[in-house]
């Protein structure tokens, strides 16, 4: 179909769907007055039951912990897939040629620039770790903090250039981090099971209110997620950045 034909079909379809949507909109619970008993119950029960001040974290890692395990698996799955797809025939090794467009002027980085990038990368990484660790207390948690920490690696690239970046990040290590993070989460679910509790049952001491250690098992899960997220996002950055590399020799043309 050409674009014109697609639109000719789509417009009446969207009109039909639009009227259906209008009907739904008019009968939805009015905005700002939710009927969601579940969430409201969590708000009243979570602080008392789990000693954590962040109710969202208690939903993620405790009440609906298995969801988050699925979510983490999803992330790891997608990253594994992206790594596999991007690496393709390029292979894992080969770090000779940095990504440079030939003929473009190349300026030497100043020392100040390199230093600043390293300083800020360190600070950013620490900030990410801080956000991970305080997941049960203040806004944040493994996913958010992990992404912040992993993004510090891009600063290393900006400052040190490709070679430094490659020397500091090793793909097998990053992938292993992913795997270890995921495995730790699975163990958090399986170990209580082995002792006759429910999977993911929070059997550790709950800790103190507003304390770094509050929420028992949640703290461990949170850190596990943080590790896995750092590993996966760094691996993803690494592989996408590898795409800028000039391939050594002509790429084998197997199927043209």
């Amino acid at each position, binding site marked *: 179909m050409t674009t014109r034909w697609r639109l000719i079909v789509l417009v009446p379809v969207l009109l039909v769907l639009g009227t259906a*949507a209008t009907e739904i909109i008019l009968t939805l619970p009015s*905005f*700002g007055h939710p009927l969601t008993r579940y*969430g409201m119950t969590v708000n009243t029960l979570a602080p008392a039951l789990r000693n954590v001040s962040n109710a969202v974290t208690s939903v993620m890692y405790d009440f609906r912990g298995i969801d988050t395990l699925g979510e983490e698996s999803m*992330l790891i799955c*997608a990253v594994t897939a992206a790594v596999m*797809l991007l690496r393709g025939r390029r292979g894992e090794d080969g770090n000779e040629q940095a990504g440079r467009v030939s003929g473009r002027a190349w300026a030497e980085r100043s020392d100040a620039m390199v230093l600043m990038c390293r300083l800020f990368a360190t600070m950013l990484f620490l900030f990410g770790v801080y956000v991970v660790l305080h997941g049960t207390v203040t806004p944040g948690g493994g996913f958010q903090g992990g992404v912040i920490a992993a993004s510090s690696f891009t600063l290393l690239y900006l400052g040190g250039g490709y070679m430094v970046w490659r020397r500091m990040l090793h793909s097998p290590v990053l992938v292993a981090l992913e795997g270890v993070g995921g495995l730790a989460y699975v163990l958090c679910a399986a170990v209580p099971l082995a002792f006759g509790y429910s999977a993911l049952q929070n059997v550790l001491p709950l800790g103190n209110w507003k304390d770094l250690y509050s929420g028992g098992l949640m703290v461990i899960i949170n850190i596990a997620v943080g590790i896995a997220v750092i590993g996966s996002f760094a691996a993803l950055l690494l592989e*996408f950045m590898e795409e800028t590399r000039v391939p050594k020799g002509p790429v084998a043309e197997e199927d043209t």
Partner: protein
Amino acid sequence: MSVLAWCVVAWLLGIGVYGMVTSRNYVHLIGCLSVCQSATYVLLLGIGFRWGAGPPIFYDHPPGTPAVDPVVQAFVLTDIVVSAAMTALLLAIALQVHKKRGTLDTQHLRPLRPTE
């Protein structure tokens, strides 16, 4: 005013689909898919919103103060992870397609072209 948020949801979904249908480039299409997804963010957060309520984090204010629904917020977080993962995967595929075919035009790219 009370229906504005829901109208935004419908609009985002509709415009995202329109964008995908008229798209001429894989990367643009991936962007439009993200627009569709942002409709779900608005919908989820809208469902949990409560007038006069604070965040469901009881650090500065004591437990018992009115707060919005934390469950949908957890869902949105999942949704964001899904989106990030999906976008990474799609971009990786698009990159490889570009390497193999030399184009990202949606109208030229079709698996198993007819033999005519």
